């Protein structure tokens, strides 16, 4: 929500300065290397964790992955699950399946340090795709391109709740050109209970299979993605809040978040 208020200024910035950009070289301050933990436990899924390290900002090399971490997830009933490395720094469990009634602890032992975090899984919010809106070529503009926009109907639970949206086109993550830095998150702060007609941000064409995943996430997860989004879409602090480090629920100075989430999925094939 915050984003749509400041969006106007991002657009102004783009308009005012459309043509005048230049890639520059600057000496950036070094920061000590940190362990990065991308961890999630979803309802009806095993825990999935990726462990990597930070790299100098402008250095053209992939971020290093850690393949020898010792990772254990446990719940408040005493169940334990040691995650196995499955390649590319990813680790997966095979015992504990995410459940909204449990509290989960994650322990990551990597490069001689132990990082721990705790999360719960909020109850999912089901939704339906009610149809799609069509934007014709004459109605289209740069924020609303020509095409079909599936619409969502749902009812939000009372109290504060937090969401992450992912959009797929024909079973692959839908990232239109120029939208690489878009993260779709929302809190319920300004939103009413009944939602009907909420459109996807991107257009689909006839024949496409549109899939929408809505994750109800924890507050910590929302904060992390919100801050990551602010980093990705920052204007250097001219109009928006200056970018800052993301927050974390991990101990011991790791970067990342242990995310608990419920996922709901719906699809629609776009037909005339």
């Amino acid at each position, binding site marked *: 929500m915050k984003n*749509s*208020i*400041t*969006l*106007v200024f991002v*657009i*102004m*910035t783009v308009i005012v*300065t459309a043509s*005048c*950009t*230049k*890639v*520059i070289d*600057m000496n*950036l*301050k*070094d*920061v000590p*290397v*940190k362990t*990065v933990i991308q961890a999630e436990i979803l309802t009806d899924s095993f825990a999935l964790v990726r462990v990597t*390290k*930070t*790299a100098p*900002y*402008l250095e*053209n090399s992939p*971020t290093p992955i850690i393949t020898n971490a010792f990772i254990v997830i446990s719940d408040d009933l005493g169940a334990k699950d040691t995650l196995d490395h499955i390649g590319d720094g990813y680790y997966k469990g095979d015992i504990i399946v995410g459940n909204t009634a449990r509290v989960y602890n994650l322990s990551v032992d990597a490069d001689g340090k132990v990082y721990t975090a705790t999360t719960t899984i909020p109850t999912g919010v089901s939704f339906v795709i009610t149809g799609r809106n069509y934007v014709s070529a004459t109605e289209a503009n740069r924020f*609303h391109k020509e095409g079909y*926009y599936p619409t969502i109907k749902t009812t939000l639970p009372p109290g504060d709740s937090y969401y992450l949206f992912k959009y797929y086109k024909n079973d692959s*993550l839908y990232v239109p050109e120029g939208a690489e830095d878009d*993260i779709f998150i929302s809190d319920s702060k*300004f*939103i*009413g*209970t009944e*939602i009907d*007609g*909420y*459109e996807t941000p991107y257009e689909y064409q006839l024949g496409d299979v549109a899939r929408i995943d809505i994750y109800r996430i924890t507050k910590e997860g929302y*904060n992390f993605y*919100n*801050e990551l989004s602010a*980093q*990705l879409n*920052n*204007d*250097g*602090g*001219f*109009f*928006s*809040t*200056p*970018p*800052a*480090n*993301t*927050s974390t629920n991990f101990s011991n100075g790791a970067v990342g978040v242990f995310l608990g989430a419920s996922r709901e999925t719906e699809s629609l094939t776009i037909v005339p």
Partner: protein
Amino acid sequence: MRFLILLSVGFWLSITGVLAQQKKHTISGNIKAGKTGEDLIGAVIMVKGTSEGAVTNEYGFFSLTLPEGSYTLVISYLGFGKIEKEVQLTENVRLPFEMEEESEDIEVIVTGEREDKNVTDTKMSAQTLTAEQIKKLPALFGEVDVIKNIQTLPGVAIAGEGNTGLYVRGGGSDQNLILIDEAPVFNASHLLGIFSVFNSDALKSAELYKAGIPAQYGGRLSSLLDIRTRDGNMKKYSATGGIGLISSRLTLEGPIQKDKSSFLISGRRTYADLFLKLSPDEKTRNNQLYFYDVNAKLNFKLNDNNRIFFAGYFGRDLFKFQDNFKMGWGNGTGTFRWNHIFNDKVFSNTTLIYSSFKYSQDINFGGVQAFNYSTGLAETTLKQDFSYYPSTKHDVTFGIAGSYRNYKPGTFKPTTDNSIFKETKLADYNSIEGALYLSDKYKINHRITVEVGLRYVLFATVGPGTVYTYNGEIKKENIRDTVQYSSFQNVQTHGGLEPRLSGRYLINDQSSIKVSYNRNYQYIHLISNALSPLPFNMWVPSNQYFKPAIADQVAAGYFRNFKENKWEASAEIYYKNMTNVLDYIDNADLLLNPQIETQVKSGRAWSYGLELFLKKKTGKTTGWVSYTWSKTQRQIPGINNGETYYASYDRRHNFNLVVLHEFSDRYSLSANFVYGTGRPVGLPGARFEYDGYVGAVYPARNSVRLKAYNRMDISFTITPRKNKTRKWKGSWNFSIYNVYASKNPWTVLTTTNKDTGNQELTMIYFPAPIPSVTYNFTF
């Protein structure tokens, strides 16, 4: 503090003592420009052969008390030539009428200051710009701007290209009291800070105080920018205006009743969007981007002792992109003023002021994502000021003021029936404020003059309102309770004494030393985490959580004039300490946050520096050079791990050169050059990969500096010869902003290269050079 009070009392005793000794009479009156009837501020009345004298106040009034006898008064004002007047002083004399007669044949330019003011005045760290000077400088998009002029003065830093924020001696852009005809302006920017709200055609003068702020004014930590609009011509009708590339201006003025009353109305509008209307595409025609403003003034001289003024300003910005986005904002101010001369020694000014600022934004995507967001604040103030001139040794000012403010921190509401949003409104804040002040400019002898002032403010945040209480640290998780306050119920009271001291020691006719000490309180806080003066920023009053910010500043300077006051030079040093200065936690959530205190930390900021200034005032070539060395740092617990960091507008070196040259009556050229150390910014030191995105790890706050800023602008004015014989006088102004197309970073973004996928830094800069042409006229 006790010492100060005793000192003030001492002055009063000495005043009465002086009065008892000798038979004295008072010469008083108004000094005006002959052709327009405009009051002259700061005209000097000297008694020939002595060092006795007086200066006209903001309303052109002066009072001079001398022993019985005969005198020759010398009245001087830059651009007017001197007037000498014999006076037989056997009783109190009023001189306004004669002055007008004398000045009838003098060329009228409303510039004006005492020729040797730089050296003789007790004021330091102050700069006056007149309308004429303001108009001569090169302009961005042909739009002459007083704030841009002020940014060329020593001690004033800029945030970046085309930004009208003022950063005075290490102070933030919210620490300037910007007054237009005594009404505060809360957001002095148009077009997101590219222009200021002040239309140069309507202005009479602008005075910036970086220190030594008179006791009459308070409420901001770092500076006072006192802008006065013209009163309007009392003698004849006239019009001035300009037609530019992006905007046009028109000012009409004249007598309502000759020599008794006048009016002035001045308007300005940008019309970039009018060209959009020519577009064949309906959607493009539906876009809007403009601002306009209107200044109006009415001025009535009821009789010799009473004058009233009405002044108003209204401005709006509007940006609309098709049916998806719309935002508008603006200030409105109104001033009613009554000048009353009680007697030859006591001048009174009663002022009623209203000022408001409003912002509104609409977003609509298909009716489902549709909302309006609005914020604003309004202030009403009643002030009573007195000037008392008991003898030539003392100029006393004192007064009282009361104000009420209402702050609307934000309302968010759905604008369609099927909008997914719900209405959210933050509770208003309200505050009342009372101020008392007393100041005496005491001329101890011809070398030493001191100005001693004291201001006391009592500030209370009052209901209706809601205040959150916390257990332990002020965090959202720690909310204990909410307390509701009813109308005008006291929520929290703050107050304090603000001493203002300055002194001048005249070494000789050409040089002086000045020192000053100032304490200022600021009771309203701008909640803004961006460098640009954004319109949706909200103000909050001091309460339990926001303590009033306090600045203590000491400054000392050496002032020297050369070649019969043609050149003036100064060197000043200052140290400023500010407490309870606000900064924001990482990733602060400032929009519509009912617990805004959880996002803010307060601590100390300090700044010190050296400012050098050299100005050539008369001749074919005029201009100035200014250089500032300064350092501004902050240390705030909870921010940057409690470690010291640089303010985002900290610039070590700032250099400005302004040159104006008149080749002939027809051709004149002006140029300015600006250089400043790059400002510190927060850029990441490392990156990380997460869920397909590239995140960043930032080192300490503002740890990297952008490259130095530099730019040169030129402006060329041609005045056709036929002007001399015609009533219609026109001139062409051609200007080029950033002549050599220096690429100054407006901001730097972290971006991903689309082809390689590597991270890089992208600088955004203003297109350059920007040429513009304006046709100015008067008739």
